[in-house]
């Protein structure tokens, strides 16, 4: 546990990627490092959590550990509106090198090598699910709780890849070998839970699937699957009247992992009625042993084992932007990620250069795992060789518990 948290921490704070999840300022030829340096080493990472219903104070309370007060839970519950509730996170870290081809320093395309670690999780849930999870089913006495549509997906994987990057416009292509650490996925199309008066019966109607990699573990140091992925970005610019327009389209980690034969799956479409364990003799309760196997058999939750191939939580990104005056820039972005709970996210970013080394921007976004967010981004060059970037997709997340979403990205690039 300790080592995985350490890794998560490093991923969270120490590295970020160019076309990653979080806010990144647009390229600026004056602030950015010279694209014609022979070598460029970049370390970057991002961590972003978001939800359209749950206030930050709840996941933060869970993260901090200890007692989670009822008032915190109630505030999130009372803020629910409808049953399209989502939450999710993306944590990624990447180290990449871009160089030059031998004897071809002046070519536009430069080689690229990159290693990365990814953790992505998404959740779609109903208000009743939230209420039962955080308050129990007692309040649903003689009522039916709606537990679907809902789903959950979590994946942890690492990539190593090679590719090429255009020096001027940032277009790139990369092919990655993927090492799958672990994944689990629940897709519930239909589920209800009826709690009879006085709890005399629990009746659940479930239709859904569950998939997971080897149940022995899915930490970062395990290899439970292998796959491949393609990452590509195409950027171009054109003039519209007097304005210079930019257009970009990108896809990241479009690929798959073939999880090994120790993966498990359950498909259920069943009605389960539970009215208590059947005991043969009320005077021999000491002999009643309810083991794990009994529970699994009773509920029909025996795994089926076998290899599973799943798509990665790839991300598609569309951008159109325009230069504003000589130092400003405005862009409209649309992105979608292949993960449960994620809806298309649209964001509007405005940035401005201050002096020769600094660029600042603000972004307003809606969608993804959550709702409206307001973020800031900063870029600063130190000398000719070092460029630092820091951004957050939601500034209020750092100051207010009763807001939704929190994220941070950091990047450092060293060129020589």
């Amino acid at each position: 546990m300790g080592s995985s948290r350490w890794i998560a921490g490093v991923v969270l704070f120490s590295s970020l990627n160019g076309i990653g999840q979080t806010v990144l300022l647009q390229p600026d030829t004056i602030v950015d490092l010279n694209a014609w340096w022979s070598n460029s080493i970049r370390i970057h990472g991002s961590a972003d959590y978001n939800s359209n219903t749950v206030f930050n104070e709840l996941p933060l309370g869970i993260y901090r550990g200890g007692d989670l007060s009822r008032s915190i839970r109630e505030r999130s519950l009372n803020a629910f509106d409808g049953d399209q509730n989502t939450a999710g996170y993306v944590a990624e870290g990447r180290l990449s090198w871009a160089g030059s081809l031998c004897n071809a320093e002046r070519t536009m395309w430069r080689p690229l090598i990159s290693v990365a670690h990814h953790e992505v999780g998404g959740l779609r849930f109903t208000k009743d699910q939230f209420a039962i999870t955080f308050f129990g089913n007692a309040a649903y006495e003689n009522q039916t709780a709606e537990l679907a549509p809902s789903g959950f997906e979590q994946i942890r994987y690492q990539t190593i890849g090679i590719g090429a990057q255009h020096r001027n416009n940032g277009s790139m292509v990369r092919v990655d070998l993927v090492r799958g650490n672990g994944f689990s996925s629940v897709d519930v199309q239909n589920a209800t839970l009826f709690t009879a008066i006085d709890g005399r019966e629990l009746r659940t109607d479930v239709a859904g699937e569950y998939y997971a990699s080897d149940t022995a573990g899915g930490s970062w140091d395990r290899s439970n699957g292998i796959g491949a992925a393609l990452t590509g970005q195409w950027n171009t610019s054109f003039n519209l009247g007097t304005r210079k327009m930019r257009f970009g389209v990108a896809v990241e980690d479009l690929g798959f992992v073939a999880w090994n034969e120790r993966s498990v799956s359950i498909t259920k479409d069943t009605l389960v009625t539970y009215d208590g364990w059947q005991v043969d003799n009320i005077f021999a309760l000491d002999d009643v042993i309810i083991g794990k196997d009994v529970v699994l058999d009773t509920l029909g939750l025996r795994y089926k084992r076998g290899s599973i191939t799943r798509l990665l939580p790839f991300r598609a990104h569309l951008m159109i932007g325009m230069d504003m005056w000589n130092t400003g820039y405005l862009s409209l972005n649309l992105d979608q990620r292949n993960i449960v709970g994620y809806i298309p996210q649209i964001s509007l970013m405005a940035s401005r250069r201050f002096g020769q080394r600094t660029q600042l921007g603000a972004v307003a976004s809606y969608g993804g795992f959550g709702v409206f967010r307001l973020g800031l981004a900063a870029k600063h060059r130190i000398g000719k060789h070092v460029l630092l970037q820091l951004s957050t997709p939601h500034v209020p997340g750092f100051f207010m518990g009763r807001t939704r979403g929190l994220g941070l990205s950091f990047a450092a690039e060293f060129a020589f």
Partner: protein
Amino acid sequence: MENVRFPIRVASLGLLILSTLVGCRKDVEPSRWDIDALVPILRTRFTLSDILPDSVRTTEADGTITLVYSDDLFALDLDTVLAIPDTSLVYPYAFPLPGNDSFDLPAGFPVISENNLIRFDFDDLALRKLILREGRLKLIMRNKIASQVFGTFGLNGVTFPDGSSALTASVGPGTAADPTTSEAERDLAYSIFDLRGPQFNDVNTLGSNVSAQLDPNGSGALVTNQDSIIVKVAYEGLVPQYASGYFGNRVITLEPESNAIDLFANIIDGTIDLNRVQVRLNVESGIGMDLRVRLHQLRSVNSNTSNSVDLQHAIMNGPINLNRALDLGDTFQPSHYQTTLNSDNSNVDQFLEILPDQLELALDLEMNPLGDISNGHDFFYYDSKLRASLELELPLDLIATGLTLQNLVKVDLPGSAEGHAIRNGELHLFTTNGFPLDAQLVLDIVDADNNVLSNVPVLGSLQAAALDADGLVQTPVESRSDAILSADQVDLLYQATRLRVRIVFNTADQSQHVRLLERYAADLQITAKVNYLLNGVK
């Protein structure tokens, strides 16, 4: 160069801050929150078979149930009548030579040759024939003569299983300072002993012959008055398979002893009024002699309530004379005595209505009260026993008052005393009762010595089903009881305690006997509403 150094400093500072942030999270305990869960716990069907096993229960054609229970009152076996002690006999021989004289013995010289009578000490028994089931005969020789010595121990009247009747052994040459010892052994199982002696007119007697001679093929020996030969014969571990003779006129007293009776073991309090009780006293004798039993006391005791009742019946006033068993040659046919006790000829109903858990018995047993009328042909086999038993027949036609069943349950809850998930709650007991008995649930938390630490209040009771004109239940009745467990009581359950569950039954009509039928049942369901702390288990 300056430009390179600065970003390295910045990066180092950043990593330092970040590693500190990661370290802060390292040892944080998991988040906990409480939920209110409302869940079914268990369901069961209670029938009389749960407390009365099939072995003690018979069902009549009309569905009524009769308890049939048998319990041994006493049993006397072979050890009581005859125990054969280990017996040793020593045959020494020394040479009566004066001073330093010596004598040269030739090869084959017979140093011992004796005929003897062996008398066994069997107390008052005068046995004529004995067949052993187990036993050993040992022949131990100790030689100080400078020649090998051959010894023979012959038993006249004994037939070993191989047809022989002697045991031989030899011992090597020895000296007065360094004697030589040897030992031979024979298994006496199923050896036949004719104990009538050489003239066949005695009892407990065997004729024997002990002889020893120097090695006939040796060179003889020079002996002095320091030389000797000692032969020791030992009978060990003798267990009879069969014995016959006259077993004497003795009285064996069985002091008051207590026998546990588990028929009512589940009932720890209350009384019942029984109808049509019947008890049979059976005595069986497998011993081939006349016996006379005088019952001094037969008392039922309820150790929980300290109530006791002495049985009153004609058998308590006069002796029970038992005929001898019949000897069939290689086995026996036991004799029997039986008498029936009921509420007309005894107080057997009161005897049982206190729900005894012990029976106390005191008696005298007189052997051969009329003397040796078999002319020395009393007998017993290894399997012969004198045993007495009580057979109870109790039709379940009763009035129950405060009839209390108890069960101690070690509650196995998730977590530990230091950290547990269940904090407080309510237990709901739903009953569909088909018995004509109402019941009150009593829950107590007790320590290892059954001292009550806390009472769990229970609201409501289980209602009795109504009787029709025939005194039978046709329709079960539904009822509900609620038990409320406080946080302190939940904490107690996580310590070295148990939950004592008592159910107190009463027949609805305390003046009318009600019949309990095989088909009667009560369906029980327990549900719980508990405040549960997620991640609260340590």
